[in-house]
């Protein structure tokens, strides 16, 4: 009934949505959405480097994102600029370097649209393996540092005082974010990855009242966005990334309805 490429995209996309759920919740709780953006913009540089030196794309994106994250930490210690300014600086300069490098690589035909917005046709069987194995590793690590990460999200000092070693888990969390971006760049595209992290978690925030519930709903709405988005992408021939994000947005708007009703009831 469906083409093989479509099944591959579905399987990979669902895997990404499962990993993006809990990480997206943490991104929202920690107000790191712009940080996620910075990492994903720098991912483009990772892709061009991968082409230049014929490296694995996911590996190269992961390394570049991790380097950018570490750069950010060291710049924060050295300069007097606020975090958001530094993030903007890194996001746009790495994006610019990436685009300049693409110019140099004129001998390779580039699908720039594909890189920026995702391309389901590009998902190979190897990519599925990468998403599911890499995703499982990310989730397992996340499981082990969860208590520390979560307590540090609520209050850093409290977490540090009670022996949770938040500095270490914060560092690992940064690497996990870089990891999920590396896994999803082919499918969602550099510009829209943060959307897949954020919007399902935002939907979940609207309709949940405990952290665990929020994570489960984030995963489910992520999966729903990916499945419906990919079908739409196939039907009306649009890029996969934007289609998925648009579906997520529609779900977000629907998730506002229960909030509205609750608000109206409270007024009475």
């Amino acid at each position, binding site marked *: 009934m469906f083409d093989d490429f479509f099944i591959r995209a579905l399987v990979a996309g669902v895997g990404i949505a499962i990993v993006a759920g809990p990480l997206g919740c943490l991104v929202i709780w920690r107000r790191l959405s712009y940080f996620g953006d910075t990492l994903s913009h720098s991912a483009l540089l990772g892709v061009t480097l991968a082409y230049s030196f014929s490296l694995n794309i996911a590996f190269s994106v992961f390394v570049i994102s991790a380097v950018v994250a570490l750069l950010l930490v060291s710049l924060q210690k050295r300069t007097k600029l606020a975090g958001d300014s530094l993030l903007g600086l890194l996001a746009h300069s790495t994006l610019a370097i990436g685009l300049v490098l693409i110019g140099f690589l004129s001998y390779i035909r580039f699908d720039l649209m594909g890189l920026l917005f995702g391309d389901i046709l590009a998902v190979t069987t190897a990519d599925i393996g990468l998403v599911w194995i890499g995703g499982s590793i990310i989730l397992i690590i996340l499981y082990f540092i969860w208590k520390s990460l979560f307590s540090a999200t609520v209050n850093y000092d409290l977490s540090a005082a009670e022996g949770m070693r938040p500095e270490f888990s914060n560092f690992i969390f940064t690497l996990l974010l870089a990891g999920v971006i590396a896994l999803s760049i082919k499918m969602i595209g550099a510009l829209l990855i943060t959307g897949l992290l954020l919007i399902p978690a935002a939907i979940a925030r609207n309709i949940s009242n*405990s952290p665990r519930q929020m994570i489960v709903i984030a995963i489910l709405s992520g999966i729903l966005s990916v499945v419906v988005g990919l079908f739409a992408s196939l039907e009306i021939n649009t890029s996969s990334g934007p289609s998925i994000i648009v579906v997520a947005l529609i779900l977000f708007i629907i998730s506002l309805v229960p909030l509205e009703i609750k608000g109206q009831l409270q007024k009475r």
Partner: protein
Amino acid sequence: MNENNNLLVRLKDCGVQKSSKWIVKGISLEIHKGKIVTLIGPNGSGKTTTAKMALNILKSDEGSIENYSTKMAYVPQKISIDWTMPLRVIDFMNLTSHINKDEIIEALELTGVQHLIYNEIHNLSGGEFQRVLIARAIAKKPDLLVLDEPVQGVDFNGEIALYNLIKEICTKLNCGILLISHDLHFVMSATDHVICLNGHICCSGSPKSIVKNSSYIELFGEHNAATLSLYQHEHDHSHQTDGSVKN
């Protein structure tokens, strides 16, 4: 048990420097099991910084810290939970270690907020949240409990009850307590060792000896000090506006 087995934390000549200015300097103190040590002093005198050194949150830029505590619990002074997180009281109680539900309810009962167990944290009032914070720290059954102005925002009757609870917990759990408080009545009547801070240790000792100390009287004013002390003696040093010692 000898004296050393009871030692939980020892700070020796510790201090914290921030952009080449010392926030606190020359801090030495010891916290023992079953004893309450209180830090008093004006705003900005380094009370919280000192507490954070004892908790290993801040590294000391001089001197040495020995920490023998196996389980620390902390009630921070100002805590702002990010409202992007749907966090109920029961989730918050389990934040850094898993505590079974009976013990959670028991601890919340002690601070009088057991009815709020399934409420979202951000719907609590300041005083209610403060009670939850204290309950959480108690439920952990720590051997070292650090309380940074634990009763702020709590109503008048509650304040007395909570102070009594803190005293009771200290005996019951045989834990060491480091308390930061502005309530001089409680400090002087219920604690074992008082440290008077103003960027450095102005004076320290038992409550009885402290109220007679000139530095204490200078810091807290003749009137406040007089309610608790019977006489005063000669000042041994005086302060500049930033709290450092005038020569």
